[in-house]
């Protein structure tokens, strides 16, 4: 560290590459898109930056606000479901025998080794009408019917005349299932990190003082893993808010999220200024979520 001061030129030399990279390929394009959001369309492809606020005004149309609202609700639901599903998973890994822990953690991050597109198509294969979920249900239906026939109740058709497959795909539920599936590791890993640091004797002390397992969980484990819960919630909420592949492939006509609208502006609608305005509104929404987190954590005494 001391060498930084002595070899200042070396420090700048090393820092130059990443800085140039970030400025050229992140800040400059971002600034261009920001400028586009104040532009007007001239003809089919030409744009002129006029400083107009029309794009933002259009984005605040109830139609688009509705899509924003739906995106927030989807991301929020994804966050809550991931927390409910992820907490037991993280707890199980923490309380697993030490030699199993690396294996279990590997299983959590294993999906990252496969492309998101492939995983989403795999989910389609699971959820569609003639998919694995319905096959499994049908198998149970068949077995139950056979059992009923054996009991002499076959002629009553208690389970209906034929198996009715569930409509699991191309609706809002499918989107939530997909979003939870994709983002669950982002919830489990911070939770695991927080729970792993938790002193077991604190849980034992709560039990010793008369708390039931559930009460000890609520009054000791949950408050002390709050940093992990907040990190996990943020890590799930922000990418879920901007996801477009999952609602695109798994959702129905009414499950469009804001990122799908933005994509359409840049591609099929060819309205870059409006797309840029929507993009920046989404970014401000993300900042708001982060600001909320900062306020919440300050209120908790700096956890």
């Amino acid at each position, binding site marked *: 560290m001391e060498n930084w001061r002595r070899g200042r030129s070396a420090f700048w030399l090393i820092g130059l590459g990443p800085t140039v990279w970030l400025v050229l390929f992140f800040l400059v394009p971002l600034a261009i898109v920001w400028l586009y959001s104040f532009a007007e369309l001239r003809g089919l492809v030409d744009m002129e930056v006029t400083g107009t606020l029309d794009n933002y005004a259009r984005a605040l149309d109830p139609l688009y606000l509705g899509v924003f609202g739906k995106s927030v609700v989807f991301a929020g639901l994804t966050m809550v479901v991931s927390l409910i599903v992820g907490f037991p998973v993280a707890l199980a890994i923490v309380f697993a025998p030490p030699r199993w822990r690396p294996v279990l953690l590997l299983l959590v991050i294993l999906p990252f080794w496969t492309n998101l597109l492939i995983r989403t198509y795999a989910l389609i294969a699971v959820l569609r009408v003639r998919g694995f979920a319905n096959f499994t249900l049908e198998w149970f239906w068949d077995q139950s019917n056979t059992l009923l026939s054996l009991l002499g109740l076959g002629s009553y058709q208690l389970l209906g005349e034929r198996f009715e497959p569930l409509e699991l795909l191309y609706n809002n539920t499918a989107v939530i299932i997909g979003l939870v599936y994709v983002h669950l590791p982002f919830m489990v890993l911070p939770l695991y990190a927080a729970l792993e640091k938790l002193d077991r004797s604190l849980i034992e*002390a709560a039990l010793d*003082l008369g*708390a039931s397992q559930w009460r000890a969980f609520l009054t000791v484990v949950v408050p002390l893993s709050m940093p992990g819960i907040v990190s996990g919630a943020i890590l799930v909420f922000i990418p879920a808010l901007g996801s477009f592949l999952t609602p695109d492939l798994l959702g129905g006509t009414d499950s469009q999220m804001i990122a799908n609208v933005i994509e359409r502006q840049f591609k099929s609608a060819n309205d870059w200024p409006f797309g840029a305005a929507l993009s920046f509104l989404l970014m401000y929404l993300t900042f708001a979520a982060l600001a909320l987190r900062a306020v919440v954590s300050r209120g908790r005494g700096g956890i």
Partner: protein
Amino acid sequence: MSTSGAAPIAGNDAPIIEISGLCKRFGSFSAVEDVDLKIGRGEFFALLGPSGCGKTTLLRMLAGLELPSEGTIRIDGQDMSLVPANKRPVNMVFQSYAVFPHMSVLDNVGYGLRIDGVPRDEIRRRAEEALALVKLDGFAARRPDQLSGGQRQRVALARALVKRPKVLLLDEPLSALDAKLREAMRLELVNLQETVGITFVIVTHDQSEALSMAGRIAVMNQGQVQQIAPPAELYEFPSSRFVADFIGSVNMIEGRIESASNGRVRLACPGIATPIEMEHEAAPPVGSTAWVALRPEKIDITKEPTGEADANTVSGMVEEVTYLGETSVYHVRISPDLPLMKVSSANLDRVTRRAFTWEDPVYLSWTATCGVVLER
């Protein structure tokens, strides 16, 4: 050393804790093996032993944090063997204190009462009483990270005592404190126990801690209880070589029984010219192996041979002198085959020159009541 706890079980009350045939196995490892133990009401009881001897496992079974593999635990007459921790009338002070870092001192102390659904103002009153008991008045609003280690321990004590348990369990309560504070806390724990009158069961690996605080001590080794006795009895009449060696400092001399009669045993010890004679109630068979345990402070060290020279006297040469302030310990070579004999003598005068020094030829002697004959 205190002998105050010589009366083990108070009055004719039934014991508060009755353990019988208790075993705890982890896989093929046996942590606690066939322990039988009775602890009386209002006793200050210590479980003493080296690390890994099973004392903490035994304490955790009393708390309900581990369930026994075999055997029963009765607390106040009720079978508690398989009752979970949150339904037992005992509370514990953890080695790490386990003070909840996200709660104030008051909320920590009131936690158990809140769980029990005690009204809010009563919680506050009782928690403040408990804090006063451990001399933490005025600390109620503090957060644990604003407390020192000693203060955190007091919070843990108050938190456990506020529930008025039938037994208070303490797992190595003083091990994390610095030496001075530890000394003071010993006395304070004893006084606290006398004030509240609750049975204390303390786990420690520090013999001086157990000797100075407890009324009775169970010495454990490899999962088994070796001896249960008041401190003085444990020190003066150990029942096995392990206990004699573990409690205090001792010279262990191996020998063969030559004769045993009239409460007196005579041993021939290889490497020692004269036989050793000791008072011993039992009469071990002639020819069997036994050990004489002699405490360093009970051996006389002189320049000239003293008394009748036909027994309990040995000559040697000072090989090492350790000055410890109030005493000096002489390490005396009595035979090339035997370990050095430790002899301690009090430094009663402010001598500038010691009576004995390196390479001095000396005589060691002791009386027949000084040592203990051990058969195991």
